[in-house]
């Protein structure tokens, strides 16, 4: 046990995910030895993140204002919505620079075995966004695992009566891999979704 505040710091750090008692101790001593300005910057950011960050009222992404940067941007196409599970999926898609529409974050995927059903996700908000008719295409970009597929199936069925175009991200072989190691499901999907080579 260390004296007073040092032990308090170790205990607090130890509550972070993936940080055990030994790592907490190491981080605590790093902070003790660090430049006071660095530490001040860290405490400032920590305080700010709780005060300023909110969830976008439209898409549910993390935002600094009432609406996130994508939802505020008039250059983003409001007719296309890409549905993802988590905010980190938005970052992954933004990195591709392929998508110019807007997003909707569900906050997870339907997983009855974990007790997560359709009512626990932001599906009602999505349906409300689709109601006014500006959206013409819905891209379902949930994870390509079983829960993600089930969520996509559920959403596709829910929005079918609205008569808009519903698409699902393609799955297939990862670029830079070997065909030999592809599993049957993935390789089967790649065959299903093969495309014409126009030369």
């Amino acid at each position, binding site marked *: 046990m260390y004296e007073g505040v040092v032990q308090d710091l170790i205990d607090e750090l130890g509550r972070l995910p*993936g940080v055990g008692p030994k790592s907490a101790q190491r981080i605590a001593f790093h902070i003790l030895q660090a430049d006071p300005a660095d530490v001040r910057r860290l405490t400032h950011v920590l305080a700010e993140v709780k005060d300023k960050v909110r969830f976008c009222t439209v898409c549910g992404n993390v935002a600094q204002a009432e609406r996130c940067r994508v939802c505020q941007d008039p250059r983003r196409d409001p007719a296309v919505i890409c549905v993802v599970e988590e905010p980190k999926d938005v970052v992954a898609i933004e990195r591709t620079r392929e998508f110019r529409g807007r997003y909707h974050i569900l906050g997870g995927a339907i997983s009855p*075995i974990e007790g997560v059903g359709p009512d626990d996700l932001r599906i009602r908000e999505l349906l409300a966004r689709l109601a006014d008719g500006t959206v013409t295409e819905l891209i379902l970009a949930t994870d390509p695992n079983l829960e993600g*597929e*089930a969520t996509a*199936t559920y959403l596709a069925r829910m929005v079918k009566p609205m008569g808009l175009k519903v698409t699902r991200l393609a799955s297939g072989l990862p670029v830079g891999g070997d065909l030999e*190691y592809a599993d049957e*499901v993935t390789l089967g999907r790649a065959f299903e979704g093969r495309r014409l080579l126009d030369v």
Partner: protein
Amino acid sequence: MTLFRDDGIVLRTQKLGEADRIITLLTRRQGRVRAVARGIRRTKSKFGARLEPFSHVDVEFFARGGELIGRGLPLCTQVETITAYGSGIVTDYARYTAGTTMLETAERFTEHEGEPALQQYLLLVGGLRTLSGAEHDPRLVLDAFLLRSLAVNGYAPSFEACAQCGMPGPNRFFSVVSGGVVCGQCRVPGSVVPSAESLELLGALLAGDWERADSAEDRYCREGSGIVAAYLQWHLERGLRSLRFVENGAALNRSRL
């Protein structure tokens, strides 16, 4: 340092650390097994989609001690798909919810890891095959699976003869506590009086008489499902998490018809 090989159905996957998962399988020889699949969440993982729930796979495990269960979790080293039932199940929401309930039930009935549960395993393989083949109503497949899981674990309900005195049926009263239908003399407080058609349906599901089960009317299916759910929850002592989503799915299907 021993290698084990077995085939099994993936019941559940849980995230572990950065890119790993803990896979729970119901295997043919070792019963329920939990094992770590390293790096499975990376896009270039050698496992790919092989270890998704509902997959029937041939797995090689690496265990630290001489036994599969014991010193820490074993590792999955190689996986081959036997049948990926998931692709036929996930395309339909009712099938998906019924299927996850089957997986959860199988997990709950195999309480002890490493204890062989061959009958439960064969039942699950058969159930998933029927479900993904879309031969029957998902709710009926689920109820048949639940009834037969109860039966292989020693809790078979009686739908003909009285569960208490053995008086030949048909008997009118159903009591969860007594273990099935009971006669007028043996009935206990809290017994219900389901319709004769519902009891007949449940008997058909337990015996595997699909011709009779498929021709049952919707309202008897619903009543039968209620009885099965109550009976199952009584014997499992804790409710199944996924069961309430099945009812939602079924209700949605009905509202569309």
